């Protein structure tokens, strides 16, 4: 039953090496939104061994979440998402420090101290713009979004990149429920996680360019911004 990080991370260390593992193990990442993207991104971050995860969401688990939100099950209906997520992540990797923020991201949101980078897993554009406004210059911001069977990932560096609200100017929230398939959420969350690891090691691959994921056409494309 004894655990050692040597065993736990042996496979990924073989792939990306000691230095990257050290950088990941020293990182504090804020995950904004614990829906489809946030549930899977936070799980991958915990499994990979980040030092600390700040989880931000004010929602509860609903039946309509279960088809795509990988950390939740029927027994969690009605439960607070940040608390369920903390419990599941601690069961996966008890060494990760989990800090819960049971709050909505709006224009009053303040970023906790010590954050290395932010994962935008929110489900609305207004919250995304408020989140981007809350981060300091120089911080990386990995944005993800999904709709239907498409999605996108984009990395920005605050102060050096165009602001998110300028790039996405004109985007407003669709009325009603947003259609979304389970597999597109998992795919976009995986690309977000990969990009987070790249950004943690100082070499984001999607800096100032969208990765557009089209599950229907089995295509990936890029769009410079």
């Amino acid at each position, binding site marked *: 039953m004894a655990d050692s990080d040597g065993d736990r991370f042996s496979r990924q260390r073989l792939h990306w090496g000691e230095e990257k593992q050290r950088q990941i193990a020293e990182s504090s990442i804020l995950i904004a*939104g614990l*829906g*489809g*993207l*946030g549930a899977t991104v936070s799980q991958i971050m915990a499994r990979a061994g980040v030092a600390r995860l700040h989880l931000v969401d004010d929602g509860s688990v609903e039946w309509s979440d279960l088809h795509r939100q990988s950390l939740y099950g029927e027994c969690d209906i009605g439960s607070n998402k940040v608390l369920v997520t903390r419990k599941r992540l601690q069961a996966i990797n008890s060494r990760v420090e989990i800090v819960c923020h049971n709050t909505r991201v709006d224009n009053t949101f303040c970023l906790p101290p010590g954050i290395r980078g932010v994962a*935008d*897993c*929110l*489900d*609305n*554009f207004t919250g995304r713009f408020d989140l981007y406004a809350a981060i300091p210059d120089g911080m990386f911001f990995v944005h*993800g*979004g*999904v*709709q*239907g069977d*498409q*999605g*996108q990932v984009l990395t920005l560096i605050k102060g050096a990149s165009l602001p998110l609200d*300028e*790039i*996405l*100017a*004109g*985007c*407003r*929230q*669709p009325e009603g429920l*947003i259609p*979304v398939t389970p597999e597109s959420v998992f795919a*976009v969350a995986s690309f977000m996680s990969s990009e987070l690891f790249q950004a943690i090691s100082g070499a984001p691959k999607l800096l100032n360019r*969208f990765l*557009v994921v089209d599950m229907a*056409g089995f*295509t990936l*494309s890029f*769009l*410079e*911004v």
Partner: protein
Amino acid sequence: MLSGKAAIDLPWAEGETVGRVLLKFQSVELIPVNHKLIDEHGALHTGTIILVNRKNILHINGLDTPVQDNDVLSLFPPGAGG
């Protein structure tokens, strides 16, 4: 993307604007797209961003944004959900 193609080359003409390029796209590809992008008052619908050389046209001059020869016009509907 709107025509199922990643990219399409269109001929350029003097005085080209984003609005005119979209009309040209419709006539060349025979795919009606303007009703998806522009409302009955001639204003841009929300939901699709239009970039000219990486800049959102809402920060330039909207549909009247000038398009030069060899400019790249990108249309992309970002997913809103998470």
